[in-house]
């Protein structure tokens, strides 16, 4: 199996962590940092909770650092190598550490997946992809502990039980959920967790608690984040040339891939070409931000990190641009009909719509645009269904879009093929 050489991998992560920690310390004195970080840890974290607004830039970066380090140590302790999927989910975790994920609220799900592995007599490490992605539902832990007004001695154990239960269900449910959209939704675990979150929301509703979504957001760090992401994207491109003298050589082949789950670009096209693709997708995301005049918040940073991460696991410009174009048309439609329909969720969906990239990769430009267009329409409804506990709300929405559109596109293409003989 193809994977990044261990010592180089450790180098990159160590440099990244040292840089992050130095930046954090330069931004804020340590005691103030701990105070702000604590605010992040005790925030209910339900969608949309921008940690930049809760704790400021330094504390958010510290949260990113601790979450990244924790998960990296976990991956190393399980003796796993970096592959496309692992890099994708690790970058997704980094992104969502800007809005909703922290070290504490992830732990009950990790416990749940561990118990699942024990119960099914399988190895814990084999469930690494679902394990790392399970943190997408971590707000449910924060919300039960800190958000519904329970005493801590009741709220905390209840949150651990609830989180562990979800972690226990998730690996089995996720493999079945894949059949629903046939791998055309790259954020498959987001779909699975959305269904579970929907049940959780209904249970709370049944017990008389009405779940209210959050809207805590700041755009104060727009340019810092913009240039940070620009430098990061360029760094990926630079590093791609260190790994591979000519990463462009395999790039045309990568661009031909439909990108359907479980496409591992590392395995199929090499490390250099994959890192190049990550950098290019980062730059394209920033172009989209500029063209659509989007202000970068914590959640928007998370969306860009996710696009970049999944550029190792199915996304590339050719399959992503059609779905984004469809999304832009829906965005303009909203602006024309009623501009109040365009919220932060709609802007985020312009980036997260790339979870449907395999639809365009498999069926072409127009089907991709149709899928992207429909995705933006369904995203707000998906949020109200799942109550805001599933951070991967776009994965939840994309699952439905893929399940509805793919059989239709398949039928149309099959009919054409039959007619042509």
């Amino acid at each position, binding site marked *: *199996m*193809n994977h990044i050489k261990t010592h180089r991998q450790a180098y990159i992560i160590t440099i990244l962590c040292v840089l992050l920690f130095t930046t954090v310390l330069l931004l804020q004195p340590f005691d103030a940092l701990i105070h702000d970080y604590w605010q992040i840890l005790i925030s209910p974290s339900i969608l949309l909770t921008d940690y930049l607004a809760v704790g400021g830039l330094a504390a958010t970066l510290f949260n990113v650092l601790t979450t990244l380090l924790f998960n990296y140590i976990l991956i190393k302790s399980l003796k*796993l190598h970096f*592959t496309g*999927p*692992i890099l994708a989910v690790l970058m997704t975790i980094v992104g969502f550490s800007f809005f909703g994920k922290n070290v504490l609220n992830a732990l009950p799900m990790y416990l749940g997946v561990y118990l699942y592995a024990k119960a099914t007599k*399988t*190895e814990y*490490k*084999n*469930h*690494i*992809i*679902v394990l790392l992605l399970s943190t997408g539902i971590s707000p449910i832990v924060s919300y039960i502990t800190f958000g519904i007004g329970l005493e801590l001695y009741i709220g905390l154990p209840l949150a651990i039980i609830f989180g562990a239960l979800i972690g226990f269900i998730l*690996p089995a449910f*996720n*493999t*079945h959920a*894949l*059949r629903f959209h*046939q*791998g055309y939704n790259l954020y498959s675990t987001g779909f699975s967790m959305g269904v579970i979150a929907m049940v959780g929301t209904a249970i709370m509703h049944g017990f008389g608690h009405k779940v209210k979504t959050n809207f805590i957001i700041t755009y104060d760090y727009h340019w810092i984040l913009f240039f940070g992401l620009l430098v990061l994207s360029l760094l990926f491109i630079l590093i791609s040339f260190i790994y591979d003298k000519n990463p462009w050589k395999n790039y045309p082949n990568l661009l031909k891939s439909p990108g*359907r*789950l*479980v*496409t*591992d670009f590392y*395995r199929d096209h090499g490390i250099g070409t994959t890192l190049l693709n990550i950098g290019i997708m980062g730059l394209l995301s920033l172009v989209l931000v500029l063209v659509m005049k989007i202000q970068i918040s914590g959640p928007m940073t998370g969306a860009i990190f996710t696009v970049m991460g999944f550029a190792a696991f199915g996304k590339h410009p050719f399959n992503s641009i059609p779905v984004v174009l469809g999304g832009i048309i829906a965005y303009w439609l909203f602006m024309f009909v009623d501009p109040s329909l365009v919220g932060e969720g709609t802007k985020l969906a312009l980036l997260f719509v790339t979870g449907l990239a395999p639809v365009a990769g498999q069926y072409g430009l127009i089907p991709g645009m149709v899928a992207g267009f429909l995705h933006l329409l369904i995203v707000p409804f998906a949020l109200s269904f799942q109550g805001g506990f599933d951070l991967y709300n776009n994965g939840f929405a994309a699952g439905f879009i893929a399940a509805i559109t793919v059989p239709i596109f398949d039928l149309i293409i099959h009919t054409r093929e039959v007619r042509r003989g």
Partner: protein
Amino acid sequence: MDRKEEEKIAKIVGEMTHYLLKHNIQLFDVKVHHHEESYVIIFQIESINQEILIDLKDKMKYGRDEEIEAYGWTLMGNTDLEIAPRLLDNVVFEQKDQMTIIKLIRNKHER
């Protein structure tokens, strides 16, 4: 045989069969051998084009990947040999005259 294993073996056979049919190869036999340590799925193909054989070898070269198996094995069957090779520990290609024999070996114990 364990029910999940049955499903996985059936899907490996399905994905391989799908690949062959897609490439207009219709004359082949399939046998599944259940050994103590492994399952061996044998495809005997009467005639296969060299270009397809090279592509097949290329797709089969990666070896078993338990993380992908745990995550996405249910997608097997209608993908273009994207997943089945990642559930196999070893693949052996043999040639007997015009007949190409492909042995897909899946060990019972994880690596």
